[in-house]
């Protein structure tokens, strides 16, 4: 019993230390963003734009597919069970609340973590193992500004933008399912009243959470990438840990948000 408690305490302290490390990395990166560096700006923005294209633009087809199919399946099942006008309204409310506010940012964060979080950990891990991070420092280049800041910007911006794409796909998928189920006529205008069921607060919360998830994913992915020391066999272990931790932290944050807003 005594040993079990000690182990639990140790595990808890390790987790706290890790969260503090992620927070420190985030603070250092935000600090680098706020500190004026006129010269490096162009180089940093080029890197950030590349990250946005990779994390955001290239993930659009996957996000559209997941959003439309997920919402279509959910709506088809819901319309099968509920067929009255009142019940249809309830389905739309659930779609708006659950999918837009909760599922959209979390699903987008999962996709971003699987695609870009893993890629960032592998890339930075390889760079650390090959001595490239130290190499750029020897040229007076700040790795936080040149390596981390663009990845933080890219992940946050792309996660917010992809969440909007996910929401649009959810509505398109749900609309097609509603038409198929005979709950709506096959005109886009018929869906407009239902679109207005989504409150501005729902959108604000979804985008706010998405931005936060993007920053958390970038922080965890970068931390594990930069923690690789010389041994390339460490990279797959770090990637696995980074992905698990991103999913845990984002889910925990989503739960906290949901409890606060309920």
């Amino acid at each position, binding site marked *: 019993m005594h040993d079990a408690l000690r182990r639990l305490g140790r595990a808890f302290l390790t987790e706290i230390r890790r969260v503090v490390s992620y927070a420190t990395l985030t603070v250092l990166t935000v600090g680098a963003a706020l500190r004026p560096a006129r010269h490096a700006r162009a180089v940093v923005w080029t890197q950030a734009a590349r990250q946005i294209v990779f994390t955001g633009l290239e993930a659009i087809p996957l996000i559209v597919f997941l959003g439309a199919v997920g919402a279509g399946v959910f709506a088809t099942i819901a319309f099968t069970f509920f067929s009255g006008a009142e019940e249809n309204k309830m389905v739309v409310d659930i779609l708006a609340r659950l999918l837009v506010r909760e599922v959209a940012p979390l699903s987008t964060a999962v996709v971003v973590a699987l695609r870009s979080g893993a890629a960032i950990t592998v890339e930075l891990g390889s760079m650390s193992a090959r001595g*490239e991070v130290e190499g750029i420092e020897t040229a007076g280049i700040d790795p936080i500004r040149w390596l981390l800041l663009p990845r933080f910007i890219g992940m946050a911006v792309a996660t917010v933008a992809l969440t909007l794409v996910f929401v649009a796909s959810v509505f398109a998928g749900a609309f097609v399912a509603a038409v198929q189920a005979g709950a709506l006529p096959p005109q886009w205008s018929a869906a407009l009243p239902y679109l207005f069921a989504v409150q501005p607060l729902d959108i604000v919360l979804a985008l706010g959470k998405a931005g936060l998830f993007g920053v958390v994913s970038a922080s965890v992915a970068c931390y594990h990438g930069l923690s690789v020391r010389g041994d390339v066999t460490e990279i797959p272990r770090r990637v696995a840990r980074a992905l698990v931790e991103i999913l845990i932290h984002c889910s925990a944050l989503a739960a906290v948000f949901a409890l606060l807003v309920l």
Partner: protein
Amino acid sequence: MTPSIEIRDLWVEGVGAKLQGVSLSVGVGERVAVVGPHQPSLSLLIRACAGFERVQRGQVVVCGVEVSAADRRALLQLRRHLGYVSISGGLLANMTMRDNLELALRYHGTPQADASRAVQSVIADAGLEASADVRACLLPAELCKCFAYLRAVLLEPTVLLAEDPSAYLHPEGRNIVTKLHAQAHARGVTVLVADDDIEFVEPLVDRIIELTALEAAS
């Protein structure tokens, strides 16, 4: 002569190597080689001068900055004035050599056109045009080392630090490195190199310091 690099009673430990109580001084514009049988310990000395190793005891002062006590920002500022060549070169593997060199200049505010011109000039001078547009990961270690030297001197440093400059170099690469050292000397750059190949470093420097087995231990 005012010292550009001042090391007093340095104690530092790395992977499989340590330095115990090393002291030396390098004047402004002076060229010094530290030699000894154990290269990892010699590298440790150069890495400590650039602030890449945690100093356990003693003091390292480079260009008036106490490296052993400097924070991250002070070190970055100092490295802007240091030319540093690691054993493997530390170039970005997925970038071409030309991009690697231009990045250093562009990050420090040189306009694109000027950076391209300066890089083309040093590459042509070293006779390395044929490999300039190849990614670092596709080139042999010798060429990577030569380009790492070019990157180090491109920023016109006041101090040049090199860990094991002879590593990976064949006669052609050695000629390029020797020429770059001569150019740096002509500009009055302070040089500190650490190498276990005394024959190679002898013509590059004014003074050779040998680390005793007691100072450099594995």
